[in-house]
């Protein structure tokens, strides 16, 4: 990663990528093993998320993800 990449990561107008209490709503794409699941955000980019703090998640569930960990499941199943 270049120095320019670091600057871009902190560009104005993007959410703080540190930890200032800003989570991201993501959709569970596939529930995996070992407390992990594949989730996608608004941009549809898939990433691995730790979901062990929640009851079992299913594909289609919406979860609030913070620093790679899902902290809460949002809404009733089937409403997304």
């Amino acid at each position, binding site marked *: *990663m270049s*120095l320019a*990449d*670091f600057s871009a*990561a*902190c*560009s*104005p*107008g*993007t*959410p*703080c*990528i*540190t*930890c*200032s*209490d*800003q*989570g991201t*709503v993501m*959709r569970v794409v596939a529930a995996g093993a070992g*407390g992990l699941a594949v989730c996608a955000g*608004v941009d549809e980019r898939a990433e*691995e998320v*730790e979901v*062990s*703090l*929640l009851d079992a998640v299913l594909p289609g569930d*919406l979860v*609030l993800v*913070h*620093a*790679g*960990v899902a*902290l*809460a499941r*949002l*809404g009733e199943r089937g*409403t*997304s």
Partner: protein
Amino acid sequence: MKFVDEFRDAELGRMLSAQIVATVEPGRHYKVMEVCGGHTHTIYKYGVDDLLPSNVELVHGPGCPVCVIPMGRVDDAIAVARHPEVIFTCFGDMMRVPGSNGTLLEAKAEGADVRMVYSPLDALRIARQHPDRDVVFFAIGFETTAPSTALTLMRARAEGITNFFCFCNHVTIVPPLRALLESPDLRLDGFIGPGHVSTVVGARPFEFIPRDYGKPIVISGFEPLDVLQGVYMVLRQIAEGRCEVENQYTRVVPYEGNPRALEACAEVFELRPHFEWRGLGFISQSGLRLSPRYSGFDAEVRFPVPGIRVADPKACQCGEVLKGVIKPWECKVFGTACTPERPIGTCMVSSEGACAAYYNYGRFARERQVV
């Protein structure tokens, strides 16, 4: 996406704005503090404050973990990062926070192996890939991020990974709120409470605010309508003579929080006797460190750190900004010597810092004109 789009509805925003106007007393000035940097970011990104009457003032609180990190801790991080066997990992914003002698980004330019990650799990992945190196993760954040670090360390322990270490700077939100409420120069009518911290800790830890200090608090989400409704709920409590903890963010925050997250934190962390906060000084039992069970992962045990307290630059008034005593543009160096490109203070570094939010969304010029 559901739970996002409907909370950005402009027409609903205008309706809430009208309700706020109808709720406030015209001759009275209201000061409401949003605790989180995430709220500050939302307010300026979406212009939430433009929908408020002029006698409702939003004050920006200490809830940006980057902004409250003292310079001495950055110096400690750089000292660890300079060890040749170390791969030092941290979140992006943290790389640009100045210590007394440069930033982590500058240390990288000088040869230190400093890498940006998006989560502690990324850092653990690097540790697996480089068993011959010591991988250190700069852990920072409130109770929202602490479970992420805790789970990662539990995972490292379960896998028997011995080259992964944590430089722990996690902090807790209640002690600084209490310190703020004890501050004689603070005049507030109520709080917009921390939404995602509350996802973990629940609403109960904030009951002391109405009980002991007579201030209403409304735990609120981070979409623009969340913040606007949170402000309305605070003002409605005041108008109705109520003073309590209310939860605007019910779609995410259970009153009791997330018990599994709290258990993970209790397993991995313990409270430090005291921890230094930029602008607020030392606050007792406000920081976390690794518990003895996890001391083998503690970077401060593995590596020597200077541990020297460094005073903030004299020109920088981050402390007053963090306490809501002054607006960012009232700082002597705001927008001149201190800019996002060349920050002096931490509030200008993080994109959720109050100074950066003012600067990036052009608020300083407008408010100066008004004054």
